[in-house]
């Protein structure tokens, strides 16, 4: 168990290096003068050379990166080019809405998907075909478009939920939940159909195993067979997929936060990209990568808990 966590954490370090270095290289790839490109044609020559120094662009890429890395390791992610605010603090302030959205959407996709998938595996027939259709539809319907439709129906037309805005959980848990219902629904429906399909395949696979027949023949209750033995053994691939879903939801969060006016890292990154605020974007890259790594760790731990063959290795 300890080895598993250690291995995951050791792997996280090069991962962070590679991803941040990659985005650094991207910045250095800007054709012509990067600082000019960032500031636009209207900026004065002096502004451009100041920015060049600020970004350290007058030096080769590797020293630039190492310099940034050194400061980042001390917790200093730099300052926003637009507001001058500390990037680390900015990310911290925007973390809660993003995490709320992604965690709730993953849970929703998991519960809905596993429920539907189980049902279709056990009942089969029409429900199974419906899930096939839904999983294709889930891929096809963009979450942000669905979000807009939800706003138009549930917020504008029926006024059931707020169209935009975010209430911190500390302020009002009910308000927090209400502000997240539509974003979570828009973000998680597609994921839920993918989880349902995976669940059905995994459950059908386990149902065909010998021990299910042995348990049934020896009179164990159907409920215990399905929910204790089958679901637990089918959970390993389902949780793998949920990890992937969770990472994918981070990408969806960029759009969903934008639509529902959630003050998260994703919507912040969109604004930063429009303003060419490179340090803030780098901060978003670091935050998202850290979240992806954390999700990977949680997935590993859950699987080890569920599967003794992983745990006792």
């Amino acid at each position, binding site marked *: 168990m300890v080895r598993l966590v250690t291995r995951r954490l050791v792997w996280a370090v090069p991962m962070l290096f590679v991803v941040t270095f990659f985005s650094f290289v991207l910045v250095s790839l800007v054709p012509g003068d990067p600082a000019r490109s960032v500031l636009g044609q209207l900026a004065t020559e002096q502004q451009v050379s100041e920015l060049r120094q600020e970004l350290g662009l007058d030096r080769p890429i590797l020293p630039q990166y190492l310099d940034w890395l050194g400061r980042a390791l001390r917790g200093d992610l730099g300052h926003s080019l637009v507001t001058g605010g500390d990037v680390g603090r900015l990310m911290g302030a925007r973390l809660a809405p993003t995490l709320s959205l992604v965690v709730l959407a993953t849970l929703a996709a998991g519960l809905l998907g596993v429920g539907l998938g189980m049902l279709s595996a056990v009942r089969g027939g029409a429900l199974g075909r419906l899930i096939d259709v839904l999983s294709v539809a889930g891929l096809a319907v*963009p979450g942000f478009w669905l979000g*807009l439709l939800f706003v138009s129906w549930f917020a504008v037309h029926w006024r059931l939920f707020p169209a935009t805005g975010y209430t911190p959980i500390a302020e009002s848990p009910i308000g927090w939940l209400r502000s997240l219902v539509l974003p979570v629904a828009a973000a998680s429906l597609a994921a839920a159909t993918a989880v349902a399909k995976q669940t059905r395949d995994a459950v059908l696979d386990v149902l065909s195993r010998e*021990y299910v027949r042995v348990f049934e023949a*020896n009179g164990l209750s159907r409920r215990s067979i399905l929910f204790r*033995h089958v679901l637990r*053994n089918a959970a390993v691939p389902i949780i793998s997929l949920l990890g992937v879903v969770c990472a994918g939801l981070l990408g969806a969060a960029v759009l969903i936060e934008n639509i529902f006016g959630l003050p998260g890292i994703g919507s912040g990154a969109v604004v930063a990209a429009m303003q060419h605020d490179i340090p803030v974007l780098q901060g978003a890259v670091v935050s*998202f990568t850290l979240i992806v790594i954390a999700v990977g760790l949680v997935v590993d731990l859950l699987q080890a808990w569920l599967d003794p063959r992983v745990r006792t290795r």
Partner: protein
Amino acid sequence: MTRGPKTLLRRPLAAAGLLWLVVVIACSLFPRLVTGTDPARQDLRNALRGPTPAHPLGTDRLGQDLLSRLVHGGGSTLSGVAIATGVAVLVGVTLGLAAGYLGGVADALVLRLSDVLFAVPGMILLLVVMAVFRNNVAAAMATFGVLMASGLIRVVRSATRSTREELFIAAAKVSGLSGAQILRRHLLPRLTGLVIVQTALIACISLVTQAGLAFLGFGPPPPQPSWGGMIAEARAVMTEAPWALVPPGLAVVLTVLAISLLGDAARDGSTGRWSARKLAPARSRRAAAPAPPQRPGTPGQPDPERLLSVRGLTVAIPARTARGQTDIAVVSDVSFDIGDGEVVGLIGESGCGKTVTALSVLGLVPGGGRITGGSCGFAGVDLVRASAPQWHAVRGRGIGYVAQEPSAGLDPAERAGTQLAEAVRRHTGASRAAARLRAVELLHDVGFPEPHAVARLYPHQMSGGMAQRVAIAFALAGSPRLLIADEPTTALDVTVQAEITGLLRRLAIDRRMAVLLVTHDLGVVAQTCDRAVVMYAGEVVEDCDVPTMFARPAHPYTAALLAADPHRIAEGGRLPAIAGTVPAPGDWPAGCRFADRCRYVTPACRDVPVSLRRPDPRHATRCLRTGALDTVGGRP
């Protein structure tokens, strides 16, 4: 690929998808042929209109024609998708092939790279690209393509690797072609389907992502339309004119649907008729609640004196034939009895219906089949018509079951003790603590000297023999009066086999428990059983006590089995085998089913079905020539 057009015709949905894609691509390439209206022509007096003859899809906030904008917006959207997909396929296939073919360090490096690409937060990185490259959609989509290559790399790599490993063996036998040639010839067909599926998936995700970027304002600059940009424009007027959301959104949805449907069809076309539906769920269908139709001439009723009494049991399993789905009988007219404490061997070659018979007694007909006739009395209950509460009393408490594969018969995720305790609680209603103690006792009963240690083990930590003992303990948890053991020793080493058969014999005596032992091993029968029921091609051909079977078999099949038994062959002697094979269900002859392999066959044998007859009350055989067997000297 000659199969292509036919496959499409058989799949109207895929054909519709192809049609839609062709229309969309044609519109994007030649927008002016479709609509004469300038997408940027403003007409403020007709802003925010629904569909009208002049504007079939309505107008936006500036009175621009939505249809024209949709058609002109396809180009920028689809070109982004093409770039991302092209880059992903190029990078993914190249790196995947390299990793799979070269192996070693290259393989490890590429795999790490694929891991990194997979974990990169794609959308944020696209925003970085957009910030740096000033709304250069092509650069963003190319970057996205690199990130999306991750999945392709893995798929191509593992296909290449496994092909290479298989060919390594094949190449040693067949020389003349270079390794690369062999690889190309064998790998390409295998890769095509996989790459098509992944490519379709990447195209779908790219399309949605491209629309998302344009929606956020990172698309082509304003007067120029794009689908995502149109959704953003519609959003601005959503409260007044929600209709404007529909055309661009549906365009994205339909195009993604078309790509994925087409991808599925192309994959199926390239890999042959592959279908997930073939994997029918392995659930059992019980016999319908009303009594199943009795075949005329089904012999008698179950004998209430005997513990288990099977009469005329007939089981059919659905099968696909040239004429479509039909039920094929795999077991027909099977009758036998088991008395209290009696150990009965159910014998025959593979495919004779032994396992189906054993499972059907428990109401768990495999392969989605059902019992179509006969009855099956167990302790006063007809199992063919048993209700759920009756089954609850029978399974586990009346009849225990042990399967062939020892380790596959236990839940891999739970400790042996936990699984046993669950069964004990289910059958006795004992408390948790009591059930745990009882589980340890059961482990002791099946011969473990240190049952506490075994209770803490997971199935993967046990040897085959240990797992089979635990499985037997599991079947004993409800103190059943009958234990059905389906080839319990077949998967084990010879020494362990003897231990398990010894254990079964001892348990049968100690607990006065009857055992139905399914096996094809006559040695096991000789050591363990009181009586033998021999099955051939789905029916019982002989039923007598074990000494009689070995001394005076009354059916040529039994005699042939005995002659072919490796235990009875003198060392160095030739191993005789029964010529021919068991006829498959559905191909059973009208007369004696063994006729084609029989030494004693006469024309009369092939005429009519042979019924089970009793030369003496304790001996049944399904043979017209039993007498000849004695005189000609059927014994080996």
